[in-house]
């Protein structure tokens, strides 16, 4: 197992180096005129020269690359041109909101996805199965940003059951920032009003973000359960006279979990992607919204920072899933 972990880690470092190189290419090489984009079309040539010098853009490309890599490796992501603060500080501020949203979405999608998947695998070909299949495929086809708008329209504007965009009402002060996670901060400050209000604000965006993953998890659970239910030991368990519910939950579901865990790893990444759209719809102060705003204003340090950070995160999720998977299934370790 140790050999596997070392190999897997070495591989991850290589991928991350590639990620940083591609990001360099995207942010510093593709743009024809990064400085012009920042200063605007009317900037005088002297100002452009000065700005180019300040950025080191007057140097040959390989020197730019070397500087870029060395500052990234030192963990220096530079200053955001839009917020005028270190990019790393920006990411640290906005990331917790995304984590809370993604976790809430994951919990929702696991609860719904697994129950739907198990039920339709136990009754294959019946109405329940067809209905859940249609539900899953419609879910996968729905643009998250559109679903979010429809939910806002229905539950906020029309029915007024749930609060609108944002994390707290504008008149409610945010509990003092300790962890950055609003849920925990409200807990620490014993600000129960803020906690309740925050959870209410969380429902719609979490549901929007979780919806797509629900469909994917339901689909994979069904396929995996169907496969396991065909196994001989399931027949044995049934012949022993065990109750069907026990056969399904104890014997089948436990063994069907492996592909489900894999899909959770994959979904984590897509939750991050979905967060970009969901946060924009719900004015959620997370990393996705930060990314959209900085990318749109061609804030290159922020683009690099967010792209590298999310790729790191993604690689880390994959690593955890792989290691967990190898732990569960010894066959993989020796490939």
């Amino acid at each position, binding site marked *: 197992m140790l050999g596997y972990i070392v190999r897997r880690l070495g591989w991850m470092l*290589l*991928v*991350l180096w*590639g*990620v940083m*190189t*591609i*990001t360099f290419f*995207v*942010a510093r090489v*593709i*743009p024809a005129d990064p400085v012009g984009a920042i200063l605007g079309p009317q900037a005088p040539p002297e100002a452009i020269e000065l700005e180019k010098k300040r950025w080191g853009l007057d140097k040959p490309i390989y020197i730019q690359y070397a500087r870029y890599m060395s500052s990234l490796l030192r963990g220096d992501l530079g200053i955001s041109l839009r917020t005028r603060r270190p990019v790393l500080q920006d990411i640290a501020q906005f990331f917790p909101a995304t984590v809370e949203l993604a976790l809430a979405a994951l919990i929702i999608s696991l609860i719904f996805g697994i129950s739907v998947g198990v039920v339709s695998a136990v009754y294959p070909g019946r109405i329940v199965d067809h209905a859940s*299949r*249609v539900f899953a*495929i*419609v879910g*996968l*086809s*729905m*643009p*998250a*940003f*559109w679903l979010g*708008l*429809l939910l*806002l*329209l229905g539950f906020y*504007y029309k029915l007024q059951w749930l609060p609108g965009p944002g994390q707290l009402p504008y008149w409610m002060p945010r509990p003092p920032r300790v962890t950055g996670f609003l849920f925990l901060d409200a807990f620490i400050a014993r600000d129960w009003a803020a906690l309740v209000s925050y959870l209410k604000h969380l429902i719609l965006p979490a549901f929007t973000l979780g919806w797509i993953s629900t469909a994917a998890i339901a689909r994979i659970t069904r*396929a995996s359960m*169907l*496969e396991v239910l065909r196994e001989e030991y399931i027949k044995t368990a049934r012949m022993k006279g065990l109750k069907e519910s026990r056969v399904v939950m104890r014997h089948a579901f436990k063994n069907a979990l492996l592909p489900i865990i894999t899909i959770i790893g994959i979904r984590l*990444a*897509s939750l*991050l*992607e979905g967060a*970009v*759209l969901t946060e*924009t*719809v719900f004015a959620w102060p997370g990393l996705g919204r930060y*990314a*959209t705003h900085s*990318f*749109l204003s*061609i804030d290159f340090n922020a*683009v690099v920072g*967010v*792209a590298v950070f*999310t*790729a790191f995160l*993604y*690689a880390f999720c*994959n690593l955890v899933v792989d290691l967990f998977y190898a732990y569960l299934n010894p066959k993989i370790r020796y490939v």
Partner: protein
Amino acid sequence: MRGLTWRDVARHLLKNPLSLTGLVIILSLGILAILAPYISPADPYLTDPINKLQPPDHKHLMGTDGLGRDILSRVLHGTRISLWIAFLILLVAGTLGTVVGIVSAYLGGFWDNVLMRITDVFMAFPQLILAMAVAAALGPSLTNVVLAISFGAWTVFARLARSRAIAVREEDFVEAARACGASHLRLIFKHILPLALSPVIVQGTLSMGGIILTAAGLGFLGFGAQPPTPEWGLMVSEGRNFMPQAWWVSTFPGLAIMITVLGFNLLGDGIRDILDPKTR
């Protein structure tokens, strides 16, 4: 695709009501896209401020938007844009991916390793973030949406084409052609490519829904088409400002995205079932 001919695939698809529905949806959308300029009740760019934000009625079946433009006409023209963009992305990403995959399989050894590791690196990014970064670097426009999404989307095709090409490479007829003195290029494009293509085409159908969603997402966020283009994602975004009063401005373009993606997903599901009988 072993042992299945295109005729088998067609028969299976027509037998399955879900994939048949998908096929019908896609064909109808294709026809609507072609006929859009002739069947649209109004000019999609024609503003009419006096009649802005009119609810759906017999004159404007989907109502009018914030500038008084007929939403139905804009949605119909949007069909052209979305399908065309998705097709171009599939073409660019599919071609690039297939070439990388086949060359990788053909060369084998060191170069195979290098090309596949590069593929892995591209796969290490969340696709939407990568597309957003490229679109931001290139500047927002429809053409750049094609490039931005293709920049990350080719990897799936590369892996598929490679795995199929590795199998084909070992076949006797390739060996025979090589013995006859066929050049590398001829071996790759004339002998290996045609046989490695079918999984790529299948994957293309499966990817279409996701590609359309990503493209619409970029449009919604402002990285894609710019006003006044009738692009669906952009239209949903424009309607946000009128959300509580005029629900129809965002709702209909979004519905159009959903129906299109649903069509491709239903068809893709049918194809997946044929390829993998276990899920049936």
